[in-house]
């Protein structure tokens, strides 16, 4: 190994040939190149030295491999190069078998993991109905931690129901999704909201020192979607803005209040309560608002344009451009004809 003793800017580089040579310092700077073969300091090595080092390491490896191969061949006969390849082939096959076995056992344990979810599905229909109704009733006692049932059947069914309702809303508003499918968007939106917001609020709860587990948070938010389901089911079929706002504040507000009250009862400290509940309330209400306006029926929008010249911006997004502009042209022509 080459080492460099002494500093200075003048570092004459050692010649790569030979290993046991001591070179005299080329310039008068005083950097002496000393052959320190057994020293492991490679910090000052030049490029060629590194290459030489790698070559030596590779040779050592091959020697070890050869020894190992020779040790294995002690049982059998010496087959030369062909034996080495056979050994390699057998090792590769062995490795593949190990990998395959590991993957199979991992897949099996994943399947068996379904049993981990089993206790969360242990409910009676009466309990589910009771919890659905309770999710709309805000609790009054916030000084005492409220009990949350860690159950996943109800929330999962509610998310799927929301997906079905969303699909209905998308079909009736003739939303055209170009890069994807209606079903994919609906499923992605609903499941993304449920899992994503649950995780986010759980993280905030961890920061704000609230006493809630992940399953309980999933359950709480899932049952909070019951209000969303009712609101959207009604307002996707009966299209009045004022009706939607009443439902948004009333039904959405009630389910949000319940979730907020339960969380407040499990958090200590005013700032923490404010952060946690403010975030949850905002996200929950805004999600309902988004679901309504993103898939709004355009007929509503045309009705609105008869009253005023400017069209609400959301309707434009969900619809084909030529149809919208035709509708606008028609209505403006009608308006102009009326005023004349």
């Amino acid at each position, binding site marked *: 190994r080459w080492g460099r003793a002494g500093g200075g800017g003048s570092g004459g580089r050692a010649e790569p040939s030979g290993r046991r040579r001591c070179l005299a310092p080329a310039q008068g700077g005083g950097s002496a190149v000393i052959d320190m073969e057994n020293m492991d300091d490679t910090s000052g090595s030049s490029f060629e030295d590194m290459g030489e080092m790698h070559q030596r390491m590779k040779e050592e490896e091959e020697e070890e491999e050869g020894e190992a191969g020779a040790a294995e061949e002690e049982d059998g006969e010496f087959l030369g190069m062909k034996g080495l390849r056979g050994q390699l082939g057998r090792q590769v096959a062995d490795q593949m078998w190990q990998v395959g076995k590991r993957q199979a056992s991992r897949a099996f344990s994943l399947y068996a993991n*379904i049993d981990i979810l089993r206790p969360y599905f242990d409910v*009676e*229909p009466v309990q*589910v109905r009771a919890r659905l109704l309770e999710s709309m009733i805000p609790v009054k006692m916030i000084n005492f931690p409220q009990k949350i049932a860690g159950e996943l059947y109800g929330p999962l*069914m509610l998310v799927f129901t929301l997906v*079905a309702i969303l699909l*209905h809303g998308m079909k009736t508003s*003739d939303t*055209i999704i170009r890069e994807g499918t209606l079903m994919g968007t609906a499923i992605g939106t609903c499941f993304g909201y449920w899992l994503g917001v649950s995780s986010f609020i759980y993280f905030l709860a961890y920061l704000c020192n609230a006493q809630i587990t992940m399953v309980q948070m999933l359950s709480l938010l899932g049952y909070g979607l019951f209000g969303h389901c009712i609101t959207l089911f009604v307002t996707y079929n009966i299209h009045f803005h004022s009706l939607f706002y009443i439902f948004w504040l009333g039904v959405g507000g009630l389910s949000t209040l319940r979730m907020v009250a339960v969380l407040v009862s499990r958090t200590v400290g005013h700032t923490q309560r404010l952060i946690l509940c403010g975030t949850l309330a905002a996200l929950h209400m805004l999600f309902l608002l988004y679901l309504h306006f993103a898939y709004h029926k355009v007929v509503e929008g045309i009705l609105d344009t008869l009253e005023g010249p400017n069209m609400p911006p959301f309707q434009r997004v969900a619809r084909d451009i030529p149809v919208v502009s035709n509708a606008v042209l028609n209505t403006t022509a009608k308006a102009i004809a009326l005023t004349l």
Partner: protein
Amino acid sequence: FAGLADVSISEDIPVEGEITVPVGSHSPDEDYSTLDEPVRETIMRDLKAVGKKFVHVMYPKKSSALLRDWDLWGPLVLCVSLALMLQGGSADSKEDGGPQFAEVFVIIWFGAVVITLNSKLLGGTISFFQSLCVLGYCVLPLTVAMLVCRLVLLAGSGTVSFIIRLIVVVAMFGWSTLASTAFLADSQPPNRKALVVYPIFLFYFVISWMILTFTPQ
């Protein structure tokens, strides 16, 4: 080893015993290898099994034939035909022709898998593929409804045709749900039947909704 010197087996005594293991059941399939039979017989046997299951779906009695010998041929055929018939049913048919097929396919299979997992988690005794088989076969009434809807839409697309389609789709939806409930709910504990029936109801409701809102171009 001195004592063993006089132990010898004389060649006169025959060795007795049964070497062959008696085969219990002699089903006709094992008498001869099915490789030698003509291809027509093989195909006809499978087709007959599928046809028998279709009959079981249309007249849901409590028989276990559907559950015992499950196969996924019928569901595949039904799913593909339904997806083909539902294709091109929206405004921009040239853009939505592709995703429509994939949508239906994914909905049916993903929905069936979810329902099966749900029923297993609720403590059901039915196996995964048996459940998939039942749910897939019970799509048959809805496929028939789709056929009828298409024929009705050929005649015209007014209010009368909508009412006819609504009645047909609702009837077939009820039939599908009842048929699959008859097979699947038995495998659940008695007080939890409603918990298993609701996802099945939702599943067939989504498919019926897609059939009802289908408008050809």
